[in-house]
């Protein structure tokens, strides 16, 4: 059981996808202008990452590994994740319209997101079993959500700041992101095994 909690805490804090591994920087900068949209994006990522962790684990260990095709995992995962998200989108639209409209535009946006693919690849790299993979995917996405929502709060303040002309827009955004990432590096020394 402590193994599972270790994976969760590491995925959320010490190995945070955005601030420690720098996965998913594109949605992190793209949809973090308001906490509400950031939360929507985070929810969609959580949803997709959890499900894709399960699906890619199955594809890797049931199809690729027995045939000795491990080296093709990246392309296989992209294929599986993209079609899976498409499938889920259709399913939600028919059966759970409220969730469909809540996740809205974010769902198709993250089909080929590197954070989603990254979580699938890390699962294989670390040799997680099925349950651990799902927990890792879920917690990594929670870490992603936390990071993007926290940064959306920072960005709301940035709007009111008056930086020099050369820094306006993305430059100051990247500097702010770097500072938040540095703050997060404080978690790096924490060891959850003890």
């Amino acid at each position: 059981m402590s193994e599972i909690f270790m994976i969760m805490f590491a995925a959320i804090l010490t190995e945070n996808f955005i601030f420690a591994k720098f996965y998913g920087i594109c949605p992190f900068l793209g949809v973090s202008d308001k906490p509400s949209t950031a939360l929507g994006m985070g929810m969609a990522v959580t949803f997709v990452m959890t499900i894709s962790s399960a699906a890619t684990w199955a594809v890797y260990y049931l199809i690729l590994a027995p045939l000795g095709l491990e080296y093709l995992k990246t392309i296989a995962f992209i294929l599986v994740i993209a079609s899976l998200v498409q499938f889920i989108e259709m399913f939600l639209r028919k059966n759970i319209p409220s969730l469909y409209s809540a996740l809205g535009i974010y769902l198709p946006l993250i089909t080929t997101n590197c954070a989603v693919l990254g979580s699938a690849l890390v699962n294989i790299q670390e040799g997680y079993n099925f349950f651990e993979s799902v927990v890792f995917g879920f917690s990594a996405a929670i870490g992603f959500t936390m990071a993007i929502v926290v940064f959306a709060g920072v960005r709301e303040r940035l709007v009111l700041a008056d930086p020099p002309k050369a820094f306006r827009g993305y430059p100051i955004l990247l500097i702010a992101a770097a500072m938040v990432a540095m703050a997060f590096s404080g978690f790096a020394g924490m060891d959850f095994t003890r």
Partner: protein
Amino acid sequence: MKAILLPVLIFLVLGAAMGALLAVASRVFAVKKDERAEEILACLPGANCGGCGFTGCAAFAKAVSDGEASPTGCSVGGAEAAEKIGAIMGVEVGGMVKMRAQVMCSGTSEFARKKYIYEGVPDCVAASKIGGSDKLCPNGCIGLGTCVAACPADAIKVEMGVAAVDYTKCIGCGVCTNACPRGIIQLVPFDAKHWVGCKSEDSGKKVRQYCDVGCIACKLCAKNCPEKAISIENHLAVIDYSKCTGCDVCVSKCPRKIIWSGEQQGKLGLVIARIPEDALKEVE
């Protein structure tokens, strides 16, 4: 050979399986779409200005087809779009008047007095949080251009501390009326002939203290209007645009010179704001 054939085969099967899954899903989970929504969308200007209160033209079209919004909701498309949408929806659409935005304030920096010098963030909302902005008048234009930033048609400019709408560019979407923290931008009929350039609801005594060009509710315009189109509501003259004939009587009677008049110019029938020059001199 096997090293190449096997992966190709596996991926063909995997791809085909995924494709089949999606093909089946698109049939099983097909959602019936309202065709009218797309027809309505084709009638709309497609500016996605948000003036209707929905997130874009597509959302508005869907709301209309669902019966949640009125076919006349799009002020940009105006009567033409409303008529077409009405035809699609099978309802009669009454005459729809083309609107334009009008800033109801004449208090430029030389006429309206200030209580302090504001040097904060150049944004009306921010300024209005600090003692209700630097202008003494609680209903005066703050002039920091929140409406300028909000306008999707780039039709607003701030001149001499008061926002002014360029009617040649205004699409009448009403986004600025919601953006203004003071609520002093109003939509008026495009061919409104006169309008009161003030939104102050304070008594005449107070208005005299903070602005040279504020409505003091003297009722001269209301008494002299031959069409009885002007009434005084909350210490402010209000013109009923449907009754106004543009006779200019109120313009000449107003002691504060804040009843503005528009004139038709050229074949386009554009309304250009004009304030009589001699009236300005008198105030000075």
